[in-house]
């Protein structure tokens, strides 16, 4: 059955996978919206910003309805498995990464736009160059997403089922132990979770500083 190491490892695997997927989709999406000009752009930006506040439990419910045997994707048998948790967290984190990336890219675009256009870089090429140039700031964006994923419980508990040995992560274990009245254990897990988040943030900060020194 579950050991502490298993629980922590699963939390990291699920949240890191979700953030990676969300970044693969969200970073280009945010950059495209920042640089592009199309009808409805402003409404899309407002919507994206609003989706940052998606309640995790609502995302959990929606994904549950999708993946349940009675639902459209039931055939895939994904409910109550780690991939279901990855899906739910990806949906949760995607708006955060896309919206924050859009903001960063748009701010940088103001600085770079004229020079890039003068050199003949347009649209996609310009966006890619820009995103790569501000890549270390985007580390902060991705970290915000990771923090959200590691901290949430509403989505993963519904689509994962908090199954002992299979889909139990740090947050759902804390919820379970609290509900069993085992507060000391829940607190210890809570400290581990917080320490993990602090460590990740410290690492990112160091990365940014090192990059600043190297690239200016």
């Amino acid at each position: 059955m579950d050991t502490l190491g298993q629980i922590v490892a699963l939390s990291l695997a699920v949240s890191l996978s979700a953030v990676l997927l969300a970044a693969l989709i969200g970073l280009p999406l945010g950059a495209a919206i920042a640089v592009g000009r199309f009808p409805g752009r402003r409404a899309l930006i407002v919507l994206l910003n609003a989706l940052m506040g998606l309640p995790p439990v609502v995302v959990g419910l929606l994904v549950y309805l999708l993946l349940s045997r009675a639902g459209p994707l039931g055939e895939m048998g994904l409910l109550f498995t780690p991939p279901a948790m990855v899906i739910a967290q990806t949906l949760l984190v995607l708006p955060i990464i896309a919206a924050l990336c859009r903001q960063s890219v748009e701010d940088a675009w103001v600085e770079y736009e004229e020079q890039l256009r003068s050199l003949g870089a347009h649209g996609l090429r310009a966006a890619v160059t820009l995103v790569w140039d501000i890549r270390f700031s985007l580390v902060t964006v991705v970290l915000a997403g990771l923090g959200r994923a590691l901290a949430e419980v509403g989505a993963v508990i519904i689509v994962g089922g908090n199954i002992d040995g299979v889909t139990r992560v740090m947050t759902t274990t804390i919820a379970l132990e609290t509900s069993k009245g085992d507060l000391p254990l829940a607190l210890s897990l809570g400290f581990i979770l917080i320490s993990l988040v602090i460590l990740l943030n410290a690492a990112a900060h160091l990365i940014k500083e090192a990059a600043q020194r190297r690239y200016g």
Partner: protein
Amino acid sequence: MGLVVKFVLASLLCTPVYAQQRFITVASTTSTEQSGLFKYLLPLFENKTGIQVRVVALGTGQSLDMGRRGDADVVFVHAKPLEEKFVADGFGVQRFEVMYNDFVLVGPKSDPAKVGGSKDIVTALQKIRGAQAPFASRGDKSGTHFAELELWQAAGIDIAKDKGPWYRDTGSGMGPTLNTASGMNAYALADRGTWLSFKNRGALVISVEGDRRLFNQYGVILVNPAKHPHVKREMGQAFVDWVISLEGQNAIASYKIGGEQLFFPNAAN
């Protein structure tokens, strides 16, 4: 970066591993999970058959809903009328009695409704309502909640109409409800198993126990493959068979907390 790639690959690779592993999904109640029974019982079954049992612990009502939707292979709950309806409606193959324990009424040591030490749950509930003493209810369609409602009815109280601010509907599992009761110094109906393993009692003690009406029967049902063809019939049936077999029943009887037995096997054979 490399570390992240490894994690992603590991988790993605785990997917086929999870898929290939032989397992069934059992929808059960918070009382069986949180009392620690499954943590004790399931490894015995898994070692014997190699079938992993994945328990989603929700509550009787939700578990039966899961069975209806086909999201579980077996349901293991404790609300006989609801279970019988589940089978009658065609969602379950057959209901087997597995084990029983009892409910206890817990309450604050200060005992505002003066029910402590009684063996009569119905009178106790009447006194609680009369004194308007705080009472924490599960309110979550669970077996325990169902039993609580039946007891109010037996006491001649229409709780839906009669409840006042003294009646706290927490809408949550046994543990959280006990937490709430502990925090509010309220009475609550709990299954003995969860109570024995509950660690945050505060000033709560057992107020009423031993009434025949506090009897709590558990049943296990295989979800009907006729309704949901993907249900793992053989493995699910193997679990049902084992739980009501001599071996399974002995295992249930041997689960103890602090020397006290929590569940009493009573499968018919």
